[in-house]
């Protein structure tokens, strides 16, 4: 083969191989490492998968936070005003976590409909609601009308 041709062929093969590798990595990385957001209403309605990582957002119901006396286990209810789901978390809650404030929790839904949270994110600001929570609230509004 002509050397220039050969070089070009090699370049093409290299690009092809490398991009396949990259796309493969991306596809592998995305598998199981992304999680979909569900508002409590959808979870109660049974739309969320059991045993898979999901995120749930809403308001922490006032008076629902129960701390364990002898461990770091915390239980609290999250509501989007249409439905309420209980979440359980073992660990240290973020500083901004508070009753009556917006929260996003990531975790796995168990058979009892309780979210076993592995991560709790909170942002505390009167004017702030996590965008996903706001959207979830608006979505249920759209569904109702």
């Amino acid at each position, binding site marked *: 083969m002509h050397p220039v041709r050969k*070089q070009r062929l090699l370049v093409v093969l290299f690009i092809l191989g490398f991009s396949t590798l990259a796309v493969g990595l991306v596809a592998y990385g995305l598998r199981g490492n992304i999680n979909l957001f569900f508002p409590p209403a959808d979870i109660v309605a049974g739309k969320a998968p059991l045993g898979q990582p999901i995120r749930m957002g809403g308001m922490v119901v006032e008076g629902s936070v129960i701390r364990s*006396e002898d461990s770091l286990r915390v239980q609290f209810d999250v509501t989007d005003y249409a439905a309420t789901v209980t979440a359980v978390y073992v660990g*240290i809650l973020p500083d901004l976590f508070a009753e009556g404030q917006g929260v996003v929790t990531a975790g796995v839904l168990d058979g009892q409909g309780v979210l076993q949270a592995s991560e709790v994110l909170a942002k505390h600001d009167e004017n702030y609601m996590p965008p996903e929570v706001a959207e979830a609230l608006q979505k249920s509004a759209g569904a109702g009308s």
Partner: protein
Amino acid sequence: MIPELGHLALIIALGLALALSVIPMWGSYKNHFQAMALAPSLAIGLFVFVAISFGCLAHAFLNDDFSVSLVATHSNSMLPSAFKFAAVWGNHEGSLLLWVLILSIWTAAVAVFSTPLPLPVLARVLAVMGFVAVGFLLFSLLTSNPFARLLPSTPSDGSDLNPLLQDIGLVIHPPILYMGYVGFSVAFAFAIAALLGGRLDASWARWSRPWTNTAWAFLSLGIMLGSWWAYYELGWGGWWFWDPVENASFMPWLAGTALVHSLAVTEKRGLVKSWTVLLAIFAFSLSLLGTFLVRSGVLTSVHAFAADPTRGVFILVFLACVIGGSLTLYALRAPAVSSRINFSWLSRDCLLLLNNVFFLTATLTVLFGTLFPLLMDALGQGKYSVGPPYFNAVFVPLMAVLVPFMGIGPNARWKQDSVSRWQRELLVPALVALLLGAVLPWFHAGEFNPWVALAVVLASWLALAMLRDLLSKLRHASGVGAGLRRLSPSYYGMQLAHLGFAVAIMGVVLATQYSVELDLKMSPGESHEIAPYRFRFDSLEQVRGANYVADEARFTVTRGGALVATMAAQKRRYLASGQVMTEAAIDAGVFRDLFIAMGDPIGDQAWAIRLQVKPFLRWIWAGAIAMALGGFLTLADRRYRRARSAATLTLPGANASGAI
């Protein structure tokens, strides 16, 4: 009065930026000497007026002028002065002004240091930077005026700066980060000027290299500072979260790393010019994209500024103008026929381009992961989030495959090299690296961890290969001292940056693999062991700071009975805002960090406590600092000074030192 002065200065700066973007550009086409010669003075004028404006805002913050809305909402009279000053950029409007200030600093620096450039080139470069400044000044004045007043109802005190930001990290992190972010505008401006002038040659690459290296070094330092700040201020011990805002600064760094290497090929060998131009556009576009992502609210992040769709629309339109315009220009003006391929696969040229492939792929995968939630949302597929596992799964293998080539790169010759020569040079380093990888993990931890072994192999291979290269450079010198003196600063810069990369690899992998983290319920008097350290919770105290009260948990840490450190973690409540914040106690060390943070009170005297031992954590940042220093070191190179004193001469790129 002074805020109005600042506002006025900003408007004047806009006028100057407009003039800068139009007059010299026009002059460069009409060959109008005076019009072009105006560019440096306009650039310096732009800097002066933006600086005045920034000074006025800083004055308002330092003097507690709560009639200025920004001061009232982001500062407080009880705030220490250094934080009052930092509060200037602890918010959207002020940080935007900082952005513009730093852009004007870069513009003025180009005007001052690049005077020997051919005048039409200088005029065009400054005009392009002026155009970018126009966009951001308009953005500031139209959508985010930092000087807006709260009249007549001036509050008696401010609502305080977010406690997370009341920290030395905020004082230095944003300016350094922006120096990097915005610094890529210089490489961008050089690229656009070259496209406009139709003269894409090695001299263009040589002019823009020192600027690009500087920006890259600042960005490395800025990202490192951000990671460090996140670690001790909001990380609960984490140091990188793959958060959209972190990614926003990381993507320009990745693209910038590719650019730094591609510029080397273009300068030395005159190859891949259009590719390098494209990378310069790409790097700055990612900076702009980062600005958009952080400020428009399209992505959810803990760091993002308050979302405002109007601002988003403005930046998007500006983005479309700058990026769309420059890519159109690129499509129309870049040399379509690639320079004849006259290098072999086995050459430094090729390895440098391989670097580009890796870093560009890394950039694109990070970009994809960052925008994936947006994409799914736009397609109506629901609200997804992409977590760190995705980024780790993609990023780590890419870097692991990159490093073997990284060791060969500096040892390889330009244009043509051979495998047999590489074998001769590098077989010993490779074998030693493998040996170290097999032995060191046992030595350190008494067990074999494959990830740690891999990290040791890669890092030691990289370090040894660099050493091998240094030795072969000295081989023909009369003496070691003379040989070392003959090597150029840019060679040392390259060595240092690559060694920094090796150190960072060690830090990242070892800190991740060997970290021990425990969340516990602890009361004063209790202790807990994370081998070989014993953490004892001595007492719980109430303390008072300048603008907060805190519960303080005091710990002593011992190792085999000997005192290692006394540490005090705090749970602070800030008086002005009532916000609660965790202040972790950290005992830093070369080989390990001890970390204690307080969670919530559980019952009587007991607290949720997080204890962590993180080996080799500091190596991550030490590596990043070495990379940044390497970048700065290249500036001392005679080549660039000579280029300055005789810039119109197109010197052949050959350099005895063989530095890239």
